[in-house]
């Protein structure tokens, strides 16, 4: 059973962070997409910039679009990315 949280980054977020994915232990008290974003932002530097408060970002949990209040748990795949521009 996977107990880590898989976090993915795309497009401009991926470039700013210099990575496209990582596996982390779900930090205590982090139970939503918004809380995870705050937790990652606290790393400072590029993280504070790429995930800055007020910056328009989208998120997905297990490959479905998710609101900031969406619940997350160990084993989930959470992705952060800018608003989409396909088509």
């Amino acid at each position, binding site marked *: 059973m996977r107990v880590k949280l898989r976090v993915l980054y*795309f497009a401009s977020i991926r470039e700013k962070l210099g990575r496209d994915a990582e596996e982390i232990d779900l930090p205590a008290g982090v139970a939503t997409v918004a809380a995870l974003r705050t937790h990652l932002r606290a790393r400072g530097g590029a993280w504070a910039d790429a995930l800055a408060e007020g910056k*328009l970002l989208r998120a*997905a949990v297990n*490959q479905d679009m998710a609101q900031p209040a969406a619940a997350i748990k160990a084993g989930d795949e959470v992705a952060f*990315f800018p*608003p*989409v*521009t*396909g088509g």
Partner: protein
Amino acid sequence: MKISIQKEDFDLGAEVKAISANPKIGAVATFSGLVRDVAMTLEHYPGMTERAIAKIVDEAKSRWQVMDCAVIHRYGALQPNDRIVMVAVASGHRGDAFAACEFIMDYLKTRAPFWKKEQTRDGAQWVEAKATDDKAAERWKS
């Protein structure tokens, strides 16, 4: 139903033919999108992209008569005038085919995880999402 996220080009005529076999089909509406002006690279979220488009197609099927459809979107490096995307919807009559085709495109623009990076004269730049695309998708809610 065909959903494909691919690097390779596609043949609109062949795709239309492939979804037109059922003799009850009386209309096929198609849309194709091309690269305008500048070269670009398209990034996507493998797995989620297919899943997001499948959900959009399911929603279209719940609203209109969709007897078959094909959605193909390319990724990777693309040049001006290259084909990027196509949507083809087969139905009994044109009204449902037109509406479902436009709906799928409008939702794809705002809900399917793709990102364009354009090669401008000032270097490569990520394309900003447009409010007009959000508006186009919004109007299907009423």
